[in-house]
C-alpha cells in the first residue's frame, strides 16, 4: 500500500484472490491459464476464475504457420485443453461460459462441455459456431437436454450451426436475455416452445431466414422489454404464404422488426412501447396489404420514437387509425424504391404532436405526384420543430411550417425532373437551415426573420455540371442570389459553392462567415463581395482555394471594406496549401484588418507546407501583433 515503494514492489500479487480472479475473468481462458507461469502465487489462481472463455480461432490461425501439425492433432490439443480446464476448475457457480468455435471438427465432446457448465450452475452461456449453412455436411452442434431446464441461466446466446430441438418440458425460470441467431430449427415450433418456457424473459433477439422450419412466430411474453427480430427473405422466392408474426407484449419498450417475409402481422398489447424501428413487407414481392398496415399502425399506437419503412405500393387504401398521440419523432426510411408518399400523409394526419420528421431516401414512384392532404395536418401548424429530408428529387418542395426551428435538406438531381425543382420555405421561427442542393432552380425563402445559422452547399459539380442548359450561368447564378437574399438575416453562414458570379444582398447581422469550395474552390472575387456586403463581420474562415484553371490573380477591392476597418477580429485559414492560394489575399487582409486579434493557419495535409514556411514566418515577423498559430504536421 505504501506509494513510495510502488515502483519496485509486486503489488499485483498481493491483491486478494477474489480481486485477482476477477481480473483474470476478463481474459480469454487461454491467457488466464497462461498466467500460471508468472510465479507460484499465480499457479492455481485461474482454477477459481468464474468465467470461462474458449475460442479455437487463435489456435487455427497458427495452423498455417505450424504446418507440421495436422488438423486432427490441433483438434485434439484444443479438446484436451478444454477438458483439462474443466477438470481442474474449482468453480461451482460459473458466471459465464463462452465457447466460440470456428473450425473444430470433432463435435461429439461439445455437448458434454455444455453439460458440465450447466452442472456448475452457469448464469451466462454463449455458444457460437460460425460455419452455419455451409451445406457441406457440417454436422450441427446438438444441445444437451439439461440446458432447457437450467434454473440458474440468466443469459443464453446461441449463434450459428446449432441444432435447436426444444423439449416440451423446457423451463428456464431465471432467463432474462435470449439470443438465437442463424440456428437450425428442428421443428416448426422450436423457437415458440423455447420462448414460452422463459417466464422472466426481458430481452429477445432473433435472427432467422425464410427457409427455416419455424415459419409462424408467436411472441407472447408478459415480461418482455426489448425485442429485436430479423427475418431475411430471398428474391428467388416470391411468395411466403405461411409466414406470420404475432407480438403480444404489454411491457415492451423497445421493438425492432425487420421482417421481409411475413404476410400477416399482429401487434397487440404494446401499451408500454417507446421506441420502434419497423421495416416490413415482402420487399421483393409486391405489397403489404392495407389491412395489415392498419393492424401494424394500430399495434404501435403508443410509440414515441418511430423509424418506419415498408415496401411501396399503389394499392393503399389510406387506413383510418387512432391518433398516435405520443409520437414525437418519425423517420420514414428508404426501401428499394423510396419511402411511401401515402404513408407520409397518414402519419402527418394522425400524429398531432410530431416534433421531428426525417425523410430518408427518395420519394417513391416519381411518375405519380405526391398530393398534399386535403387539410393541413395539425402537427404542421402546432408542433413540428425539425425536418430532415434527404435526396428528394424533382418537383417543388414547399416547407411552410410556422413552428419549424431546424431544417436540413439534401437534394440530388435525377436528370428527369431537374428543370422543375423549386424550393419554397416560409418559416418565421426557423433558426438553423442546412441545405445541400445540387439541382434547385427556384428558391423562394420568405419570412426567415429568426434565422441564426445557415450552411449552404450549392451547385452542381463544376467538372461535370448537372445542368446542361445553354444559358446555365445566368439562370443558375440568379437562383443563388435569390437564395442568399432569403437568408440575409443570418448571423453565421457557411457557404460552399462552385465558382460563379453572384449578386449578393447586404448581410446586416452576419458576424461569422466561412467560405469553402466544392470540387474546386471558392471564387476570390466572391470574397471581395462578401467583405463588402457584411459590414459587421467578426470571424472569417477560408478553406482551400484551388480552382483548376481559374484566375489566380486577385484584385483587391478598390476601397477597404468597412468590416476590415472596424469589426474583423479573427481569420482562420483551413487546409492551407499555398498551391492555388494567393498569398496576396492574406497579406491584404493582414495589412488592412485594423482590429485583427488572431490569425490561425492550418497547413495540415499540405505537401507544400515546407516550401511555404519561409513566407509564413516572414509574415509572422512583420505582423507580429497578431497571434499566429501554425498547426502543421511537419
Amino acid at each position, binding site marked *: *500500500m505504501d*506509494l513510495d515503494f*510502488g*515502483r*519496485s*514492489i*509486486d*503489488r*499485483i*500479487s498481493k*491483491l*486478494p484472490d*477474489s*480481486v485477482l480472479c*476477477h*481480473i*483474470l*475473468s*476478463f*481474459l*480469454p*481462458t*487461454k*491467457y488466464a*491459464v*497462461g*498466467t*500460471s*507461469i*508468472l*510465479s*507460484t*502465487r*499465480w*499457479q492455481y489462481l485461474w482454477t477459481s476464475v468464474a468465467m470461462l472463455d474458449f475460442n479455437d480461432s*487463435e*489456435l487455427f490461425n*497458427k495452423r498455417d504457420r505450424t504446418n507440421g501439425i495436422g488438423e486432427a492433432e490441433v483438434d485434439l*490439443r*484444443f479438446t*484436451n*485443453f478444454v477438458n*483439462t480446464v474443466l477438470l481442474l476448475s474449482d468453480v461451482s457457480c460459473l458466471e459465464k461460459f463462452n465457447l466460440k468455435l470456428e473450425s473444430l471438427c470433432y463435435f461429439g465432446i461439445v455437448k458434454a462441455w455444455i453439460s458440465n457448465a450447466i452442472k456448475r450452475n452457469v448464469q451466462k452461456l454463449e455458444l457460437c459456431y460460425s460455419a452455419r449453412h455451409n451445406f457441406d455436411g457440417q454436422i450441427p452442434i446438438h444441445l444437451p437436454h439439461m440446458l432447457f431446464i437450467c434454473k440458474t441461466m440468466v443469459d443464453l446466446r446461441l449463434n450459428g450451426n446449432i441444432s435447436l430441438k426444444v423439449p416440451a418440458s423446457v423451463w428456464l425460470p431465471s432467463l432474462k436475455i435470449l439470443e438465437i441467431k442463424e440456428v437450425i430449427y428442428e421443428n416448426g415450433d422450436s423457437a415458440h416452445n423455447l420462448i414460452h418456457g422463459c417466464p422472466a424473459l426481458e430481452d429477445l433477439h432473433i435472427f432467422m431466414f425464410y427457409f427455416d422450419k419455424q415459419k409462424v412466430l408467436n411472441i407472447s411474453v408478459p415480461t418482455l422489454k426489448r425485442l429485436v427480430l430479423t427475418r431475411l427473405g430471398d428474391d428467388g422466392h416470391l411468395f411466403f404464404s405461411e409466414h406470420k408474426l404475432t407480438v403480444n407484449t404489454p411491457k415492451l419498450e423497445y421493438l425492432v422488426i425487420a421482417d421481409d417475409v411475413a404476410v400477416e402481422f399482429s401487434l397487440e398489447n404494446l401499451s408500454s412501447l417507446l421506441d420502434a424501428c419497423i421495416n416490413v413487407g415482402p420487399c421483393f414481392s409486391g405489397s403489404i396489404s392495407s389491412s395489415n398496415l392498419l393492424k401494424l399502425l394500430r399495434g404501435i399506437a403508443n410509440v414515441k420514437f418511430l423509424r418506419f419503412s415498408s415496401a411501396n405500393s399503389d394499392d393503399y387504401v389510406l387506413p383510418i387509425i387512432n391518433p398516435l398521440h405520443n409520437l414525437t419523432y418519425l423517420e420514414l426510411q428508404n426501401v428499394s424504391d423510396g419511402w411511401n408518399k401515402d404513408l407520409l400523409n397518414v402519419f402527418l394526419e394522425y400524429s398531432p404532436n410530431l416534433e421531428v420528421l426525417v425523410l430518408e431516401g427518395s420519394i417513391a414512384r416519381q411518375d405519380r405526384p405526391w398530393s398534399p392532404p386535403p387539410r393541413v395536418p395539425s402537427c404542421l401548424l402546432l408542433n413540428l420543430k425539425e425536418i430532415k429530408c434527404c435526396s428528394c428529387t424533382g418537383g417543388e418542395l414547399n416547407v411552410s411550417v410556422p413552428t419549424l426551428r431546424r431544417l436540413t435538406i439534401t437534394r440530388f438531381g435525377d436528370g428527369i425532373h431537374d428543370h422543375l425543382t423549386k424550393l419554397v420555405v416560409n418559416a418565421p421561427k426557423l433558426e438553423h437551415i442546412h441545405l445541400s442542393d445540387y439541382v434547385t432552380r427556384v428558391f423562394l425563402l420568405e419570412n426567415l426573420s429568426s434565422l441564426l445559422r445557415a450552411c449552404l452547399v450549392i451547385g452542381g459539380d463544376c467538372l461535370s455540371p448537372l445542368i446542361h442548359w445553354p444559358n446555365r450561368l445566368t439562370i443558375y447564378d440568379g437562383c443563388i442570389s435569390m437564395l442568399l437574399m432569403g437568408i440575409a438575416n443570418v448571423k453565421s453562414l457557411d457557404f460552399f459553392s462552385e465558382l460563379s458570379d453572384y449578386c449578393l444582398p447586404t448581410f446586416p447581422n452576419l458576424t461569422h462567415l466561412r467560405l469553402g469550395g466544392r470540387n474546386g474552390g471558392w471564387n476570390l472575387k466572391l470574397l471581395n463581395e462578401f467583405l463588402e456586403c457584411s459590414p459587421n463581420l467578426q470571424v472569417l474562415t477560408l478553406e482551400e482555394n484551388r480552382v483548376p484553371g481559374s484566375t489566380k490573380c486577385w484584385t483587391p477591392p478598390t476601397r477597404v471594406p468597412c468590416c476590415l476597418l472596424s469589426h474583423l477580429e479573427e481569420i482562420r485559414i483551413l487546409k492551407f496549401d499555398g498551391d492555388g492560394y494567393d498569398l496576396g489575399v492574406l497579406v491584404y487582409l493582414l495589412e488592412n484588418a485594423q482590429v485583427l486579434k488572431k490569425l490561425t493557419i492550418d497547413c495540415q495535409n499540405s505537401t507544400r507546407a515546407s516550401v511555404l514556411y519561409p513566407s509564413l514566418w516572414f509574415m509572422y515577423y512583420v505582423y507580429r501583433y497578431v497571434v499566429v498559430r501554425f498547426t502543421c504536421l511537419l
Partner: protein
Amino acid sequence: MASSIENNNEKLTLKSSDGEEFLVEKHVALQSTLLQNMLDSDCSSADVIPLPKIDARTLALVLGYCKKHADASSSKQGELNSFDSEFLKDMDMGALFNLVLAANFMEIKGLLDIAAQKIADTIKDKPHQEVREIFHVENDYTPEEEAAVREENRWAFEGFP
C-alpha cells in the same frame, strides 16, 4: 432505505485512512453496496464512517465515479460509457491498484469491473517475462518447476509472443 433515497439532500461523512473527511450526498454513496448495507442496517448517518483502507486521493476518485453514475442514471448510457473509458485513461498502475482495492472493499461493481478490465488488458497479448517486469512479479519457480507448469497446460502457452 426507501426514505433515504427519497431525501436526496441527506448527506453523510466518509473518512479516509489519512484522516480526510468527505461530505457525500446519500444517493451518491448508495452506489457502494457496502455503504448501502450499512445504511440499511441503520448505522446512524450522523456518525462519520471510517474507511481505514482507502486513502484520500483514491477516495476522491471513487466518489467522482459514484457521483457521475448516481446523477446520470436517467441519462444516456453512451455518455456513461465514454466517461468510464476516460476515467482510467493515463492512470498509473499504483493508483489503479488502489482503486481496484477500494472498489472491491466498497463493493462498487461497475468501478471494480472497469479497473479489473484495464489491468487485464495490460496482461493480455504480452510475453510472460514482460508481464513480470511491468508488475514486478518475482519468478520464484525453479527452472524444472517452470517447465513442468508449461507442460501441464501446453495449449495455453502455444503461440504466445
